Structure formats: structure tokens, C-alpha cells
């Protein structure tokens, strides 16, 4: 292909819907991409962080090689998976694939496990495929569970006490248990000490389970055993539960002996410091840390999460490796799909500019998350962030939760927007 770089990029843009692929752009390179041309960027992780980073990197740096390593050919999103528990949607509706990244954005996809990161040789070792050399690496592997931190809670126990905190078979398991339990039973949800993926998630889950039980098993109860003293959107959730599900949800904070210390999977018994709860369904969400590959590669500190420079999400521990999404420590940003999507864009722009020896623009970060309390009732939380002294900092006076005194129409609108949010973020990250 001929023409100046600007023309080529326009051609690329026009070709985004078709078969126009980037290798055709390799001849007469322009200023920005000339220095970056041929650079190899590898991205580990096929969730919202990894996919968004790959896609936006392609936009910012048309001439580089981008490889995304995702464990499976499809990805099940955690956002909206609580709706599956309520029977509002099928698990299959949460399935995303990488076809657009591969076909429209010329991202090389490898479905394999990353077994090691050799930072000194800038090489990824994979389970089956050949090693991959990179110039820049982005790690977006998500979370791992701290099995054993709660006595008796390991992966085997999670087959009877499902966490459903990574969407898939665990979600189906919890749904099946809810459906088969007798009316009048107790559903316990054990919430680990923060930080964990999706701070409002356990409380949205309680709401969705309450919606299901109130319609199908109205004599049942929900017991929220919480290792925390407060939670995201707390006033809004408590108000909504009082209005929609009076007497159904019993929230027990840590100060009232809410922290689960030990479990017995065989009898579905949860032990707190002073009490024991034998329940019909136990959704035990384990304590969390960054995924194993991040820890094994020296990217995590003693907290189990990965400290980063906020300006570009490069690890403070291993230069040349960027960490985004749930695995990263990003100050006040929650571990959410929205935050991962935003961090991915900052990281992509920083890598593109650094590869071409330009200064990146001032980072701007954002998070908006909706929680469904009932099919026609949602609440939201938002945050806008900038970078001060290389730390992610929430902008004072901005963000926050839906108003406490809003009317039902407002809640209905937010439920509609919650659906729209999901469609948009999936399109922005995977489409």
C-alpha cells in the first residue's frame, strides 16, 4: 500500500469493518509510528483490561505487533453474572469472543497458559505454544483466590460452597443450588475482607438472590456474613432492601461477628468467631490477591497486589512490565471492568507514546458501575481520577453514588442504563 501515513491511517479506519489488516501498512512509516514500528507488545489476559489495551494500542500505534494471550477462546464476563443467579439472563449471554480483535484489529491471539515471565530476556513461556519475545509487556491476569486463608476453604470445598466470583461453571453451580433448595432455607453469602474484585458485587448478588427467593421461595432468608464494617453503596442498598425485600436480608458486619473463619463443606456450616451457621446454600467468596502469574513474576508486593506507576501503569517492581485491571493497585480505583477498561486506555497510550519517544498526555481515569437491586431498580457509583505524584487520585467533588432520595423513576432509568452500560463496555472492550 502506498501513500503517506495519514492516508494509510484513514484507509485503516475505513477498513476497520472489513479485511484491511495492519501488515499492509508497513512501507513508508510516519513520525509517530516510525519509531514504534515493529515493536512487539504482548498482553497477558483476555478480560476487559487485556482486550481494551490491545484494541486501543492498535488505534494509537497501527504499525506495532500486538499479541494477546488469553486462556480460552471465549470469555465469560463477571459483570451482570448476578442476573444469571436471579434467572434474569442465561450464562451464555455473557459469553464474549476475540473475533473482532483478531479480524478487525490485527491482534494475534494465542489461547494458552502463561507459565513464566522471563523479564531479563523479555520472553513469555507458555504451556503449549512456543515462547514469545516482547519489547513491552502488559499483564492483566485478574485475581486469584487465597485458598486456605479461611480454614477448610479450598478449591474442592468450592464445589459445595461455590464462590461464583469468576463467571462460568461456578455461576451455574450456585444457580442450581438456589433452584434446588427448599423454601424456608437460609442462603449465606460470605464476604471477604476488602480489597476484592467488584466491591459492590456481593451486595448486588444478595439483591438478585433476594429477588429470586421473594418470588419462588418466599419463606427463605439471606444471611450476609461480612468481614468488613462498611460497604460500597451501603446506604442505597440498605434502603432498597428495606423497601423491596423487607426482613429477607440480614447483614452481619465484622463488628457483630460477621467474619467467617472456618467452613465445613460437607455440612455447609460456616463458623465465625463465636457462632456457627448451618445453611442450605453457602456462597463463600474467598479472600483474593493478584493472579498467580503476577505473583510468580515478582509483580506483587506483600499485599498480594501489584504496585504500579499511575502515569503509565508500569510496575514499580519490574521495569518494562505494565499491570492493569484487578491485579493492579490503583489507589482509590475499585477492581472493576470499568476501571480495567480505563486503565487499559491510559496504559495503551503511554506505551504507544513511549515507544515513539513522545511524552504521553496527562492520564485521565474513570469508573462507573451499576448494581441491579431488582430488574427495574438499579443504583450506580462513579469516580473520576487523575494522577498526582504518580498516584491515582480521586478528584474531589466528583463521582459518588446515586442520590439516596431519588424516586423510582430514577431507579428505573438506572436499571435501563445498567443494561446499556453492559452493551457498551462489551463493545468497547471486545467489539
Amino acid at each position, binding site marked *: 500500500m502506498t501513500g503517506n501515513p*495519514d492516508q494509510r491511517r484513514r484507509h485503516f479506519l475505513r477498513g476497520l469493518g472489513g479485511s484491511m489488516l495492519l501488515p499492509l501498512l508497513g512501507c513508508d512509516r510516519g513520525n509517530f509510528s516510525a519509531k514504534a514500528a515493529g515493536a512487539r507488545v504482548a498482553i497477558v489476559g483476555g478480560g476487559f483490561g487485556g482486550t481494551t489495551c490491545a484494541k486501543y494500542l492498535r488505534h494509537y500505534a497501527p504499525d506495532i505487533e500486538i499479541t494477546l494471550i488469553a486462556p480460552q477462546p471465549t470469555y465469560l464476563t463477571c459483570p451482570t453474572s448476578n442476573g444469571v443467579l436471579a434467572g434474569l439472563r442465561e450464562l451464555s449471554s455473557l459469553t464474549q469472543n476475540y473475533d473482532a480483535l483478531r479480524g478487525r484489529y490485527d491482534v494475534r491471539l494465542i489461547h494458552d497458559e502463561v507459565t513464566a515471565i522471563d523479564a531479563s530476556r523479555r520472553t513469555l513461556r507458555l504451556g503449549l505454544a512456543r515462547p514469545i519475545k516482547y519489547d513491552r509487556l502488559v499483564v492483566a491476569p485478574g485475581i486469584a483466590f487465597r485458598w486456605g486463608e479461611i480454614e477448610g476453604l479450598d478449591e474442592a470445598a468450592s464445589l459445595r460452597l461455590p464462590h461464583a466470583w469468576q463467571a462460568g461453571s461456578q455461576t451455574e453451580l450456585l444457580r442450581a443450588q438456589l433452584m434446588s433448595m427448599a423454601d424456608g432455607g437460609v442462603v449465606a453469602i460470605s464476604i471477604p475482607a476488602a480489597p476484592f474484585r467488584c466491591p459492590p458485587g456481593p451486595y448486588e448478588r444478595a439483591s438478585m438472590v433476594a429477588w429470586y427467593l421473594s418470588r419462588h421461595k418466599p419463606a427463605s432468608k439471606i444471611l450476609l456474613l461480612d468481614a468488613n464494617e462498611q460497604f460500597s453503596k451501603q446506604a442505597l442498598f440498605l434502603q432498597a432492601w428495606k423497601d423491596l425485600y423487607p426482613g429477607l436480608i440480614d447483614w452481619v458486619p465484622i463488628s457483630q461477628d460477621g467474619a467467617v473463619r472456618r467452613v465445613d463443606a460437607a455440612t455447609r456450616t460456616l463458623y465465625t468467631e463465636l457462632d456457627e451457621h448451618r445453611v442450605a446454600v453457602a456462597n463463600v467468596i474467598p479472600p483474593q490477591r493478584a493472579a498467580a502469574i503476577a505473583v510468580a513474576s515478582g509483580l506483587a508486593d506483600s499485599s498480594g497486589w501489584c504496585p504500579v506507576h499511575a502515569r503509565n501503569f508500569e510496575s514499580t517492581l519490574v521495569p518494562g512490565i505494565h499491570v492493569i485491571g484487578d491485579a493492579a493497585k490503583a489507589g482509590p480505583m475499585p477492581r472493576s471492568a470499568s476501571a480495567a477498561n480505563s486503565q487499559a*486506555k491510559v496504559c495503551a497510550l503511554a506505551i504507544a507514546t513511549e515507544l515513539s519517544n*513522545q511524552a504521553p498526555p496527562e492520564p*485521565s481515569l474513570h469508573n*462507573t458501575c451499576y448494581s441491579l437491586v431488582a430488574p427495574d431498580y438499579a443504583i450506580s457509583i*462513579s469516580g473520576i481520577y487523575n494522577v498526582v505524584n504518580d498516584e491515582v487520585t480521586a478528584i474531589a467533588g466528583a463521582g459518588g453514588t446515586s442520590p439516596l432520595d431519588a424516586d423510582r423513576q430514577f431507579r428505573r432509568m438506572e436499571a435501563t442504563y445498567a*443494561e446499556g452500560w453492559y452493551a457498551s463496555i462489551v463493545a468497547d472492550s471486545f467489539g
Partner: protein
Amino acid sequence: MRVSLAAVALGLLPLWTPAEVPNSAAAALTANCNTCHGPGGVSPGSMPSIDGKTVDYLLGKLRGFRDGTVDNTVMSRIAKGYSDEQLQAIAAFLAQSR
């Protein structure tokens, strides 16, 4: 021919073919709009689309959200996170799609 970062950043949004963008800071700011409003501001679902609008329309809305004079659910909380200069840059960048 020099290609600025801004020109490269025009590739940010698949459905856009603007001749130029104001600056890369605007691209960085506006990338966050896509999360909820869809790539290129074209919403695939129930979120309002924000592509194809004029600068005046967009800036009027954004300032109205920030000042609380335009009814909304979440945008007033978001708009308060940006200076007027940033809102102007966002509006101008989004309007490039017209």
C-alpha cells in the same frame, strides 16, 4: 509529513474519520466516554449515543450536567470531575465525528 500523536489518536474511534483532532489530551479524556456510550460514542444499547453532535450541543449538555441545570442520572457526578477547559476539549473532540 509529520504525523502528530493527535493524528494517530484519531484512530481511537473506529467509526470516526476526522481530518484532525485538537490534541492528544482530548483523545485521552474522551476515550473514557466510550466505556459507557460505546466505541466512537455510538451506543449499541440503551445508553444515549453521543456521536454526530455539535460542539455547542455537547458543551451545553456537559456544562449543564456539571452545574446541575440539565436533568440526568450519573452525568452530573462525572462532569464535576472536569474543568471547563477539559469539557470544551471533550466536546470538540466528540464533535469531530460529525
